[in-house]
């Protein structure tokens, strides 16, 4: 396929999602990314409709630009596309939100859903980069509370181990999104993970644990759930009506932890 490179920093999203068109789009995008311009325009003028694949293309472009430290601007956006983006809560992120310096792996991040309740909601993919990015956001959020270093470490560990166990046991794919809502009150934090995949109840899998025995047995795996259960104060799990998993974890500090 011949790649036509024009002199503008613009890439056009194809309406027809043939392999050739997709290849051409991503090739052009990559060429632009390599040029490292200040801004890349993603032209949506050809879009007659917006399918999930089109949205994924926009998200891919946004993510790639973010990673490269390049501002992405959508141009020629139809009203139909605006509606779709708003329904998906992507409008602010892809269209109106100012470019953020920090690279984010999340498809959608809502920094605060309820300031009065000190809550944060985020979605992250079941990939190491996205999980790490989620941990960073959680730690930043935890900065609101005057927590001890140990509490922050334990919450970081809980987040990491839950995410890794979801990847391993719930059989989610790299593209599946895990939703986390964290809510701070004066004496505790609640972490609610909602994730797709097969039913996976972390509370049901913790077996008897004998440190001496596991060393003798040369056991290399299976410590994550023990760590989660020991670092958290309350854990509950349920399968939702729409076939999602909901894991709720609470951790106390101060007098409530006594």
């Amino acid at each position, binding site marked *: 396929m011949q790649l036509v490179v024009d002199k503008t920093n613009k890439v056009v999203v194809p309406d027809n999602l043939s392999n050739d068109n997709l290849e051409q789009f991503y090739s052009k995008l990559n060429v632009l990314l390599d040029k490292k311009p200040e801004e890349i325009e993603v032209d949506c003028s050809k879009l007659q409709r917006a399918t999930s694949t089109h949205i994924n293309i926009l998200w891919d472009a946004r993510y790639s630009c973010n990673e490269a430290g390049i501002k992405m601007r959508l141009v020629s956006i139809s009203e139909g596309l605006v509606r779709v983006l708003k329904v998906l809560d992507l409008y602010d992120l892809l269209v109106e939100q100012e470019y953020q310096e920090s690279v984010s792996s999340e498809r959608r991040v809502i920094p605060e859903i309820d300031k009065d309740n000190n809550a944060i909601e985020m979605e992250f993919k079941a990939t*190491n980069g996205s999980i790490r990015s989620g941990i960073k956001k959680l730690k930043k959020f935890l900065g609101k509370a005057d927590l001890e*270093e*140990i509490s922050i*470490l*334990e919450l*970081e*560990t809980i987040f*990491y*181990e839950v995410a*890794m166990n979801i990847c391993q046991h719930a059989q989610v794919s790299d593209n599946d999104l895990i939703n986390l809502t964290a809510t701070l009150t004066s004496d505790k934090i609640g972490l609610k993970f909602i994730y797709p995949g097969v039913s996976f109840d972390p509370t049901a899998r913790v077996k008897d*644990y004998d*440190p*001496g025995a*596991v*060393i*003798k047995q*040369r*056991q*290399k*795996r*299976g*410590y*994550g759930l*023990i*760590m989660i259960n*020991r*670092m958290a104060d309350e854990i509950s799990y349920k399968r939702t009506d729409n076939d999602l998993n909901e894991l709720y974890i609470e951790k106390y500090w101060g007098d409530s932890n006594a």
Partner: protein
Amino acid sequence: MPDASFSQEILNKETIIIKTGKQLDNNNAHEMVETIVSIQIEGYKFIIFDMQQLEFISSAGVGSILGTIEASREIGGDIILCNASNSIMQVLEVLDLADYLTIKSDRAEAVKLGA
């Protein structure tokens, strides 16, 4: 000398030091296992695990130590942890490992055991 990305330093014919990076997690725990096993196969009895740089250890990272330590102990050696931060110690204590692992405050103390 095993080929691995973890920094290693041979102290004597029985003792070798492994220096971890900032993280020992699911991404590199398997590599740590391979490194330790290679060192054990080469005949080193004592492995000093210098955690000075380590900021985060996941369950897989802990598992890379727990799963390999017995092989060293069987031949009269050990895996000796040193320079662990409070955060790392907290993880080890959560898993009740303080009484089952050989943990020294710094490298000098660890080297005494491996000397």
